[in-house]
């Protein structure tokens, strides 16, 4: 198929993972790891669909998804920041718990046709050459998710609260000196992040894979979203690129299957995952101690180049990610 359409279809599938990645980026920017993403996505997808079905309104569905998403985030925040229990452990438990809850409560709603957000081409623009099918012949959620990316970027880097948010994750003590109530703010951003993740879950069940089933077919996506946050270096735009890249990989896997008849299909279906690790490797390897030593042995020109590329790729987390702030 021709490129614009291809890209268009990649964008069309992207909103859920975009929202998930954005939500987690916000949470982690504040210094909190919400590991429960995989479960959250499933549960919010299920709830979103069920509510939308009963109230016959996708809006209600999305709201429900966001509420549940932030509810999960709240449990995480409370257990880790108020009860001082390990954040990763809590997140992991929540992942499995939410997944099973989704299956238990969703059982009665499998394969029931329900409401879904319908496609909305933007008249006039949609049949522009090239960018038409890519940008303007899409589902409202696609527009929304892309706008959200810009919005979050703007919030992070162009507004005072965004700056405070960065400080929160970088050095809570210093943020506190500048008059930020660290714990309260972390709660807030954890909840917001959770809500956006919930939006992502709901946009699975109300747009990309309308309905509910078991297996629903997004199992595992949350983990990838978490990895993409790292790849994205906690920067919304770069994270968005990562998300799209992952979708592109999946599409590539389908197309390649017929192009390379000798390679077993399973290799294609799994392709995105090793690639994910590889990219992680690329962005983190710069932090490994031995790299510098090796690089120093290399000839000048090559070293320069390698160092520059590594620097460009390298990402490092908010300095206080996952640590709990207690003021003296």
């Amino acid at each position: 198929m021709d490129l614009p359409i291809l890209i268009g279809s990649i964008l069309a599938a992207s909103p859920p993972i975009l929202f998930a990645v954005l939500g987690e980026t916000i949470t982690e920017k504040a210094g909190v790891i919400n590991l429960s993403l995989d479960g959250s996505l499933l549960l919010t997808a299920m709830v979103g669909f069920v509510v939308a079905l009963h109230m016959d309104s996708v809006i209600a569905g999305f709201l429900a998804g966001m509420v549940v998403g932030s509810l999960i985030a709240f449990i995480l925040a409370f257990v880790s920041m108020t009860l001082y229990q390990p954040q990763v452990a809590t997140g992991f438990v929540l992942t499995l718990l939410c997944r099973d809850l989704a299956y238990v409560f969703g059982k009665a709603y499998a394969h029931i046709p329900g409401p879904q957000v319908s496609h909305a081409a933007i008249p006039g623009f949609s049949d522009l050459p090239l960018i038409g099918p890519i940008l303007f012949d899409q589902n409202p959620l696609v527009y929304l998710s892309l706008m959200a990316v810009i919005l979050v970027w703007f919030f992070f880097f162009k507004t005072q609260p965004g700056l405070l948010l960065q400080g929160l994750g970088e050095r809570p003590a210093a943020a506190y000196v500048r008059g930020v109530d660290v714990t309260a703010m972390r709660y807030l951003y954890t909840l917001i992040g959770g809500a956006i993740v919930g939006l992502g879950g709901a946009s699975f069940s109300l747009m990309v894979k309308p309905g509910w089933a078991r297996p629903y077919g997004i199992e595992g996506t949350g983990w990838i979203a978490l990895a993409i946050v790292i790849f994205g270096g906690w920067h919304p735009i770069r994270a968005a690129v990562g998300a799209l890249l992952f979708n592109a990989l999946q599409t590539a896997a389908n197309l390649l299957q017929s192009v390379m008849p000798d390679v077993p299909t399973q290799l294609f279906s799994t392709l995105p995952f090793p690639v994910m690790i590889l990219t992680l490797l690329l962005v983190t390897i710069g932090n490994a101690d031995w790299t510098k030593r090796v690089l120093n042995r290399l000839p000048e020109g090559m070293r320069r180049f390698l160092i520059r590329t590594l620097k460009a790729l390298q990402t490092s987390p908010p300095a206080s990610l996952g640590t709990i702030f207690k003021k003296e």
Partner: protein
Amino acid sequence: GEKKKPEPAKAPEPAPFVFGVVLVGPYNDHGWSEAHYMGGKYAESKIPNAKMIYVDNVNPGAKPGVTIPQVAEDLISKGARIIFTTSDDFKDGTLEAAKKYPNIPFVNVSGDHAWKEGKDYKAPNNLSNFMGRMEYGKMIAGCAAALTTQTGKIGYLGPLINDETRRLAVSAYLGAKYAWTNILKKDPKKLKFKATWIGFWFNIPGQTLDPTKVAVDFYKSGYDVVISGIDTTEALVEANKMAKAGKKVRAIQYDYKEACKEAEEVCLGVPYFNWGPAYVKAVKMALENRWTQYWDWDGPDWKDINHPDTSAVGFVKSRGLSQENAEKVDGFIKGLADGSINLFKGPRQFQNGKTYLKEGEVATDLQVWYFPQLLQGMEGRSK
């Protein structure tokens, strides 16, 4: 405790005859498993005081570490007197269970362990197999697809690749090709038929291709009709989305009579299994203690392929199929019925050019059941 009052004597009603069914997916998956569930229900309704008990979602994803012998034990302890295991995935477990409980009849659906002529005959006497000749259903599906497509491009959303799935994909292709060349009288070169295999019967993220994505890519790249070969409904759901977005696309479902209900106007129809009669037969044999091992491969009842009591496979048209095409499809079915159309008749070539059927040669059951390779003219992988 308090004393029990003597209860008024009732007419002793006969104890129900319980049969157990093991489902691989959810009983309400609108696909393979639900078709079997309905089959069981049908048997309940036809045989006085026959009662079905079932376990669904028997797959390592949903029920870690659960094996067929274990489920069988469970069902038997609940009073089951015959057990149906309804997946190719259960063939080994069923064999083991059958050996473990020699006086409980077992029926493994879609297996071949009980086929004396087959390549894999090793079943004990209490184990039988049955399967429906879905080939015909798929031919009809292919025909409907070819009649409907505007672009001349038909996508086949395949599960994993094996003999069964190959023969079904091929059947769909043969039906399509017949409709294209003999009914529409179009240039065979203009027909594209492409199979993409996701790698399993349903989506397992990270281990299969995402059927939703495969469907999207089919539609986006001009394949306006997609025939689903998997147990779940992604193709239809996606077609529905596309249609809502104003694209003229269609899907063909699989397995379950009601599968089109999710979006009737984009569904051309569904080739489905009507397991009821087969269940009745097996339960009756067990009930009347005249069990003998058998291997059934039941076709449609050509008098009425949708007859609930006689036809093992059928095809229900859906609103997505235009009136005139519907008539053409009926014609095609008639042709199949009276034998004037036999698509498993030579000459047929494999993808690699080797001969499958020589001129005039008609394929034997063995040749159809164990289908080694896709046919020439089909796009997609054979292994």
